[in-house]
């Protein structure tokens, strides 16, 4: 069962079609990776799916509901959460506040929005702490986000997405800029999340992709050129030509 689908999705910036006629179908409960060379349009695709940009043409269907053109803040409420390729947190906030704000957004009610002290939302705070614990940052809850390491900021990035109790998690290069050791930790983390959420993953590190994905879609110049299981993708001649060239020859 597809939980997230795109139909002929296109986004043009002037003459450049950053995303070109993409038909994608994400099965519920799986881990679906999107790979492609730099500039293939992967992040633009995420920006379309989460409502940061409105598409030039085509449709996006989430859980049977057309969400094309829905603004980002509303998409988040439907249960589609994302992490960003470039760390995108609230630097002056404590780690706990970083996730608290995401947990509150998706909370059942905003009663007392402008009046009740924010430390008196026990359920929201518990959710926020759980999200921090999920990524292994529980002990640093009171530190400001700007004071932690890059690797930890990547984990926080993920925790913010988790705190909103999403149904689909879009992860944009969660291991970007991480050391091999930190990458191993991040892969373990993504693996642990697999099954709990439907995950769509953009990643450049091939070993990561091949080991965690259920399905892989390959983007090239804005278009989808192949889709299949990791084994099928590794065998696909067109993919090898466009993207894995160097790797396959080695």
């Amino acid at each position, binding site marked *: 069962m597809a939980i997230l689908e795109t139909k002929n999705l296109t986004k043009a910036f002037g003459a450049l079609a950053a995303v070109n006629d993409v038909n994608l179908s994400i099965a519920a409960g799986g881990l679906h990776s999107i790979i492609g060379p730099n500039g293939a349009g992967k992040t633009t695709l995420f920006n379309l799916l989460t409502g940061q940009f409105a598409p030039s043409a085509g449709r996006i269907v989430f859980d049977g509901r057309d969400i094309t053109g829905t603004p980002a803040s509303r998409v988040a409420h439907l249960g589609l959460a994302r992490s960003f390729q470039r760390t*995108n947190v609230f630097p002056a906030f404590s780690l706990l506040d970083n996730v608290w704000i995401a947990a509150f957004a998706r909370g059942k009610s905003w009663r007392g929005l402008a009046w*009740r*002290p*924010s430390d008196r939302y026990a359920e929201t705070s518990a959710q926020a702490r759980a999200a921090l614990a999920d990524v292994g940052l529980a002990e640093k809850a009171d530190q400001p986000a700007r004071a932690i390491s890059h690797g930890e900021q990547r984990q926080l990035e993920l925790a*913010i997405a988790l705190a909103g109790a999403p149904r689909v998690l879009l992860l944009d290069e969660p291991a970007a800029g991480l050391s091999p050791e930190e990458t191993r930790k991040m892969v373990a983390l993504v693996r642990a999340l697999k099954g709990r959420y439907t995950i769509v993953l953009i990643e450049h590190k091939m070993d990561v992709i091949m080991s965690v994905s259920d399905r892989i879609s390959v983007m090239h110049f804005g278009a989808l050129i192949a889709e299949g299981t990791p084994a099928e993708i590794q065998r696909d001649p067109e993919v090898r030509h466009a993207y894995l060239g160097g790797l396959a020859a080695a």
Partner: protein
Amino acid sequence: MRHPIVLVLAAVAVLPFVVRPVLATEIWIFAIFGLGLNLLLGYTGLLSFGQSTFFGSAAYVAGWLLKHYAINAFFALAIGVAVGAASAALVGYLCVQRSGLYFIMLTFALNQLFYFVAYQWTSVTGGEDGMPGIPRPAFLGIDFTDPLNYYAFIALLFLASLWVMKRIVESPLGKILQAIRENEVRAEAVGYSVPRFKLLAFVIGGAFSGLAGVLYAMLFGIVPLEAISFVFSGNVVFATLIGGSGSLYGPIIGSIVFIWLSESVSVIWARWPLLLGVAFVIVVLFFRGGVVEAWSRFWSWQSSRQRT
């Protein structure tokens, strides 16, 4: 500073005996104005150069009703708050569509628009001469023409405003506005409609400005044209930055410094804005958090000196 509220209460008690009661009253009115601005400037990260739009509009409307219809003080305050909020909703709606420099210029331009309406509409506003003859009606049998009575009334309203603002900034709304200041894109991505929350901050700030506007009109018995001019908008930004926009109490300190300087030093030295300019340069260069930051740095320096 563990309990800044104790200092505020002490200042409220002492001030009318240190400076003229009228000046003391003006300080707390300006502080209410500053509290409203700081929700935008300090918490949401929006530099509004048009706060006198709401201050002045409220002063004119409530002043006019006080003058011609002899409405009671309570009703005048309610009108002021409502006009402040409504004008802020209108201006804010247009301004939040843009960000950065364009946002600032829009708040300024719309301020000018309101200013020229007030300037031209002489039959109502008195134009350059201002709108004189605004009464200070008695309330609950208390005679507000007595300066100390009026001072006490304003001081109470100021404390109430401070309490309300404290509740707001410590609520989830306060956190959301700060999240928008920190990172708009992420705030939107986790599920907050940034323009709507900015507008809400505008409306709340406008309500505070409106309250300050009516109290100002009642204090001086006149709405000068200046009350809706960009100079007034600039003054409140100035005062808030000098006090420290990063803190709830910054605008209060800023108001004391600004109003006290402008009233007492200007008598001795006509070029006093020069002094403000110097203060402003010092703040921008060395104490981005204003007096509040200078104060806390001084105390941490003191305590580190004592330890060694």
